[in-house]
């Protein structure tokens, strides 16, 4: 049953991710583009490049794999999380994992993800322990034995309290202490009664929960083991990758770190390119003093040792995700592409078709957008994957040095740092992030190489 439901969830996740990536998202993009009034004519050259890319199997499959994984990772809150997808208890219904996803995905909303334990047949004012809830709802016997354990404990304590009951000669504080113990015991008895009363609901099947595929959150500490963390991976404990030094399960950590790293790199690359293309385009297109002055500025800016500078700033600011993105864009990401775009714009601008366009009175904006930019797309596209590799590595490096994302954020670099400190005894702390990092970046590099090959095929023609 357990294995079956796991496989079912896995199939749903993979199939959903695949459909989303290959069907839904392209469809949405096309619709959105049409809505904005953008109609891309696919030129034969572009078509040929795309076809060539598809023909390079390694790169094409790496692209499909990585994009699907990334799309799936956007829904991690409902796939890898300690919160249940659905909990039903005696008429109460809640979707805590979905709520969390909405809360994270839409920053302008504030969705309630909290469900009080006492509302869902458990004890206390804190959040429901969904895993326990799931266990009880599937097997009320678990609850029954829990009740039995608690009753036994309470009975033992009751006997002890009764035995040590103070006599009339004892001082007042002893009486008070005794009274406290008795009240506590009564409260426990009350809890046991509540649980016993709730047993009905669990047994009648009106309590019911669906847990995500992997029911642990990256922020949860797994303290159910006898040994102090870090715990090594093992099948018998169900810890497939082990835990980190504070006891967090490495599986959700790896998954969330994947999402964070890739989105970080994608945002940095995207915004950085946007800025870089504008700057480089302006330099190349207008030339003259604009070009000379801004070129000097780019040169000076490029001489900043960016890793060290980010480290200095990060040690002062304690940056959040967005600040780190901003810093990397500001100090590095926009620079590299300006050289290429500037060069391309220079070259394209001196070509006859642009002269013709200028002569026939086409506006600067239109010449740039319609004529020059599409022609300078090759370096932009071919460098993008390698830039992404660079930014993922930059984030890993900063996290590794301790100047990256806030402490506690799932990150490969942070784990590597723990791994280096524990390299002799807990190699899994090195191996897990290295494998995840290398596989991810390998896919990106494969894509990059295929894109380069598709856009700019190299031939070796041998003469002898």
């Amino acid at each position, binding site marked *: 049953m357990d294995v079956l439901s796991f496989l079912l969830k896995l199939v749903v996740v993979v199939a959903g991710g695949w459909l989303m990536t290959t069907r839904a998202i392209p469809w949405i993009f096309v619709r959105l583009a049409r809505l904005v009034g953008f109609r891309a004519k696919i030129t034969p050259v572009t078509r040929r490049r795309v076809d060539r890319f598809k023909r390079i199997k390694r790169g094409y499959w790496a692209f499909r794999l990585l994009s699907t994984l990334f799309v799936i990772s956007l829904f991690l809150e409902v796939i890898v999380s300690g919160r249940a997808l659905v909990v039903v208890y005696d008429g109460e219904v809640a979707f805590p994992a979905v709520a969390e996803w909405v809360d994270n995905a839409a920053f302008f909303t504030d969705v309630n993800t909290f469900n009080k334990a006492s509302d869902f047949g458990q004890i206390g004012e804190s959040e429901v322990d969904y895993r326990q809830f799931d266990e009880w709802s599937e097997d009320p016997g678990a609850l029954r034995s829990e009740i039995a354990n608690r009753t036994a404990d309470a009975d033992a304590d009751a006997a002890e309290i009764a035995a040590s009951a103070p006599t009339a000669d004892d001082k007042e504080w002893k009486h008070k202490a005794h009274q406290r113990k008795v009240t506590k015991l009564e409260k426990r008895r009350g809890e046991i009664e509540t649980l016993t009363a709730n047993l009905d609901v669990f047994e009648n099947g009106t309590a019911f929960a669906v847990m995500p595929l992997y029911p642990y959150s990256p922020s949860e500490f797994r303290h159910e083991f006898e040994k102090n963390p870090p715990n090594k991976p093992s099948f018998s404990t169900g810890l497939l990758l082990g835990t980190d030094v504070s006891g967090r399960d490495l599986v959700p950590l790896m998954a969330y770190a994947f999402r964070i790293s890739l989105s970080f790199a994608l945002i940095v690359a995207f915004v950085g390119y946007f800025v870089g293309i504008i700057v480089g385009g302006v330099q190349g297109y207008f030339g003259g003093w604009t070009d000379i002055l801004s070129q000097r500025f780019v040169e000076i800016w490029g001489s900043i040792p960016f890793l060290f500078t980010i*480290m200095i700033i990060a040690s002062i600011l304690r940056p959040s995700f967005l600040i780190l993105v901003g810093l990397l864009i500001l100090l590095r990401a926009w620079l590299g592409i300006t050289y290429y775009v500037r060069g391309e714009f220079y070259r394209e601008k001196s070509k006859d078709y642009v002269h013709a366009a200028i002569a026939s009175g086409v506006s600067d904006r239109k010449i740039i957008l319609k004529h020059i930019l599409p022609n300078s797309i090759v370096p932009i596209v071919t460098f993008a994957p390698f830039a992404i590799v660079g930014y993922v590595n930059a984030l890993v490096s900063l996290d590794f*040095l301790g100047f990256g994302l806030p402490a506690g954020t799932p990150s490969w670099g942070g784990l590597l740092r723990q791994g280096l400190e524990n390299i002799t005894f807990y190699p899994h702390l090195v191996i897990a992030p290295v494998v995840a990092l290398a596989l991810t970046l390998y896919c990106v590099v494969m894509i990059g190489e295929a894109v380069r090959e598709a856009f700019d095929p190299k*031939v070796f023609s041998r003469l002898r």
Partner: protein
Amino acid sequence: MISYFVRRILLIPITFMCITFLVYFVMRSAPGGPIEQARQQIMMQDGGGGGGAAGEDLELPQAAIDQLKRYYKLDKSKPHGYLIWLGLAPDEDKGDRFSGIVQGDFGRSYLWSDPVIETITSRFPISIYFGLIGYFATWLVCVPLGIKKALNHRSMFDTGSSMAVFLGYSIPGFVAAMILMLLFSTELIGCDWFPLGGFRSEGWDDMWAKGEVWWCIKDQLHHTFIPIIGYVMGGFATMTILMKNSLLDNLGADYVRTAFAKGLPENRVVFVHALRNSMIPLCVSIGHAIGLMLAGSFLLEKTCNIPGLGLLGFESIVGRDYPVIMGVLVFAVLIKLVGNILSDIVLAFVDPRVRFS
């Protein structure tokens, strides 16, 4: 040409001032400056002594704050403080002498109270040692590999080695060093061959003094191996692909056909005509590599615990040791600028077409 280099060299101080000015401003504006530092230190000392109400100790006496402010030039405006630090304005505390980085005075480290310049110059050669060996090792690997890949473009060898090259590209150098340490410095697979980081073994200096040269060299190489592979991994993929693509482009050039039309043998055309041209972008990478060397050294020196400039920079940031931070930054910028100029000089040597104007 000479005027070009004069201009380039003149640009150094401008670039240099811009960057240091920027960083000086950021540091001055930052919370947790030297006064905060001193306050925390006093708190820690008092905390060790025990007793006393906690709230009182948070505030230093006003006189002490003023003294600290004066010492760190916080009483001056930012531009004035910057000029004093730079050595272009007289320093009252030092008898109105000009004493700043222009004069080679970087101040004293908060953490070690040594002059910053001494700390840096003692650490710098270690970084250079690894950087240079790493760079040349990269050349030794990449140039032959790139040539072979170009000449066998799309062969089994090319595709196969590309896989390895891309793997090298997707693993940063310090991670590679960490993997190697895991494999060959721990008992994981029973191959405990190399030391787990460090520049030399403890007691190296004693052994050197005793004249155990052979032991010293062996020990040094022993410690060098893993970090060097880390350095090579860092640049090896880019350089191999650069070599390969550059050679491929040149093999398709018109002058190669001319050379064949003259009746020259294939080896001569490939290894004299085409190779000579395709080495140009590689030679130019030397300046860039020097900059990268330093960036890489932060990570690799941290990973392998090598007391070079990178580790110094790292420790100074962790310890908020501002004079050292600024010192390392100045050094890093200088190295980068010198690297750029070096690239230009090399380019002028290897490419006769270059006329800087």
